[in-house]
């Protein structure tokens, strides 16, 4: 198993055996360990001492279902703390089958006027990967929907692509790392935290992979792996949320628009209300029925990456049947829709397409535009104006650069006090005043406000079930701590986090996940070991953040959420600070 280190200061590379201490790491566990061990916490995120780390999960590249995830890590220009963002893409599988445990991008060229790409291939003679550099300057400052076909034309359809767009090129704190989807779209993003700018600051425009001849992922105990794979597959095929034509395959994640709206927890018009009158027009049900009307047939969702059973990625089609964008996720739909007071699905999809085209995180982009709306830059509900602001970000106008800096910075520049961020990262689509459990996770996660940081997994295994009232502040904090730990492991496994839906309710699915990992690595982890591993990842991340100056004082929701009641339930976020402090205080 290999580490590839690419030094952008002098455009050299090394392929080294993976260090013994990292041999059982993968995904988030790997990226956070390398960042914690090698990046000075006080280094500038866009300077030469930051590193950008890519790592496929432990079972990525095997036959394990729904497992083609890659984690991307570094010090975040958005939060100033450690960051892991992950994506589902064939790029993850291709890196894994080359037996690469981590690809680390280091250094920075002094000449920032040129950009470079690398192509990673399998060197059969040497029995390890090799790297070739190429000039990629010509691909800068373009729409990624135009760039990707050029790259495929030049390097062949068999490659997979990682890169950044205009946002990363301009060092925006709102910029993601883009990967190809199964239809060669630039639509799969490790979106949060500005890691596109870290890649852009190193002027590494692309990392291309051609896995021809690669040996595949070694599996230490094939029988155990197969046993686990079957349990996981059965759970995903059976559960109502993950099965074919189930909730996610039918309506996609945008099914949550109407649910959160009815619950009074759909942040609307920059978090000033919990219910949006136009929600039903932009929801997953409307996307499903609207596509049916426009295409004349039912359209179920597709896989973002190879080997996925859940297949939750939707597309939205224009009245003439042409695709506008894929995919309109719940959080994107909300951020660019309800949170901006916009109920035009065609325009929301166009904004998703523009975020993909320019390399922007949809959540951060929508939250920032809503803050700009509150400042009076454009009115709430002005979808054409919002589209124009995205173009300004893509083109790098002065206003575009301010907005590209993210919600917190834009709020300061525009004089807005109503800024929904934690640790500088915009809150996603679940209102903490209505859903207090997620508010605890938003406040305390090492990542800044992050809806994927605390998935509910196996309470009986975590040992939290029945010990405390799950609705008391202390109970919610205990659950958030346990959920964050198990989520850190799932993010390391290579599985999409959506397997959590099935393995919470079907215990054999959780067993399957652990057996898959043990089968690949030859380890003997118990369920308890897995939870402890997740907790150890959180501790590393927390220690990095504290050394970077981000301590428990940053584990708070914005002040306005404690003082402004949110209609329709007119609740404030009233979880005491002591409960928030207990999440990591008792880890």
């Amino acid at each position, binding site marked *: 198993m290999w580490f590839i280190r690419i030094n952008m200061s002098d455009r050299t590379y090394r392929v080294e055996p993976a260090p013994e201490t990292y041999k059982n790491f993968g995904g988030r566990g790997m990226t956070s360990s390398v960042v914690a061990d090698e990046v000075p916490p006080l280094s500038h995120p866009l300077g030469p001492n930051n590193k950008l780390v890519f790592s496929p999960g432990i079972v990525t590249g095997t036959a394990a279902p729904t497992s083609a995830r890659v984690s991307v890590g570094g010090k975040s220009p958005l939060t100033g703390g450690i960051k892991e963002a992950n994506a589902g893409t064939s790029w993850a599988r291709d890196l894994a089958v080359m037996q690469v445990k981590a690809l680390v991008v280091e250094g920075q060229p002094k000449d920032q006027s040129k950009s470079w790409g690398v192509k990673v291939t399998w060197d059969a003679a040497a029995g390890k990967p090799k790297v070739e550099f190429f000039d990629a300057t010509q691909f800068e400052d373009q729409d990624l929907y135009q760039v990707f076909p050029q790259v495929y034309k030049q390097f062949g359809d068999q490659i997979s692509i990682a890169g950044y767009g205009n946002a990363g090129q301009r060092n925006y704190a709102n910029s993601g790392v883009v990967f190809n989807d199964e239809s060669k779209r630039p639509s799969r993003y490790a979106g949060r935290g500005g890691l596109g700018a870290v890649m852009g600051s190193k002027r590494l425009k692309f990392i291309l992979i051609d896995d021809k001849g690669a040996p595949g992922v070694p599996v230490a105990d094939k029988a155990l792996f197969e046993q686990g794979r079957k349990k996981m597959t059965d759970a995903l095929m059976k559960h109502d949320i993950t099965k074919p034509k189930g*909730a996610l395959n*039918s309506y996609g994640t945008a099914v949550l628009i109407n*649910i959160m709206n009815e619950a009074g927890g759909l942040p609307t018009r920059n978090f000033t209300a919990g219910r949006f009158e136009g929600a039903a027009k932009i929801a997953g049900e409307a996307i499903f029925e*609207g596509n049916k009307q426009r295409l004349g047939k039912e359209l179920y969702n597709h896989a973002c990456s190879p080997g996925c059973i859940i297949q939750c990625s939707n597309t939205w089609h224009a009245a003439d049947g042409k695709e506008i964008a894929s995919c309109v996720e719940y959080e994107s739909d909300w951020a660019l829709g309800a949170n901006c007071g916009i109920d035009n699905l065609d325009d929301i999809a166009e904004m998703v397409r523009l975020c993909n085209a320019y390399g922007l995180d949809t959540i951060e982009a929508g939250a920032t535009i809503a803050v700009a709306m509150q400042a009076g830059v454009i009115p709430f509900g002005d979808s054409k104006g919002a589209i124009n602001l995205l173009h300004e970000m893509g083109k790098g106008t002065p206003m575009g650069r301010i907005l590209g800096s993210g919600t917190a910075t834009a709020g300061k520049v525009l004089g807005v006090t109503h800024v929904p961020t934690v640790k500088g990262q915009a809150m996603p689509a679940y209102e903490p005043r209505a859903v207090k459990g997620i508010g605890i996770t938003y406040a305390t996660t090492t990542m800044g406000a992050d809806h994927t940081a605390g998935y509910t997994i196996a309470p009986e295994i975590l040992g939290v079930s029945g010990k405390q009232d799950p609705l008391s502040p202390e109970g919610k904090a205990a659950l958030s701590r346990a959920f964050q730990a198990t989520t850190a492991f799932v993010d390391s496994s290579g599985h999409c986090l959506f397997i959590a839906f099935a393995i919470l309710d079907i215990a054999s699915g959780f067993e399957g996940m652990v057996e898959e990992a043990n089968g690949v690595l030859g380890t003997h982890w118990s369920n308890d070991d897995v939870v402890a591993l997740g907790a150890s990842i959180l501790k590393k991340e927390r220690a990095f953040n504290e050394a970077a100056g981000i301590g428990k004082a940053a584990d708070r929701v914005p002040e306005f959420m404690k003082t402004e009641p949110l209609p*329709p339930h007119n609740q404030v976020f009233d979880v005491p600070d002591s409960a928030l402090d207990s999440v990591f205080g008792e880890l």
Partner: protein
Amino acid sequence: MSDIVVDTWLYGELARYGGQAGQVGYGNVQIHLKAGATLADLLANLSMPTEVRGITFINGQLSAMPGLQPDLVHVLHDLDRVAFFDPHSMWPFQYRHGVAMVGEMADAMVASKDQGLHHTYNK
């Protein structure tokens, strides 16, 4: 006894029980019921079997999940807002942990396996 009006929302496949032209993927109808009517009476008025619904809200408070329907006896009031979702809908636990629930649902959650810490409740 005077009538009450219930603002009724029908999402996804359930729009066929009350959808109107121009409402894509949902239906919104005002249902007149006798005072003292329950959620079961509302379902009967809609000719909608309770088995076809999943997640349900009464005035923004969770009242039912797939496999967990303690709300049939819940008494409705004038201008209540009731929302029914089809079985393809979902609401993972972490995104509803601490939300408002009607009393019957809060009791049912506490009484269910792992105090309700699951995504679905179908047997």
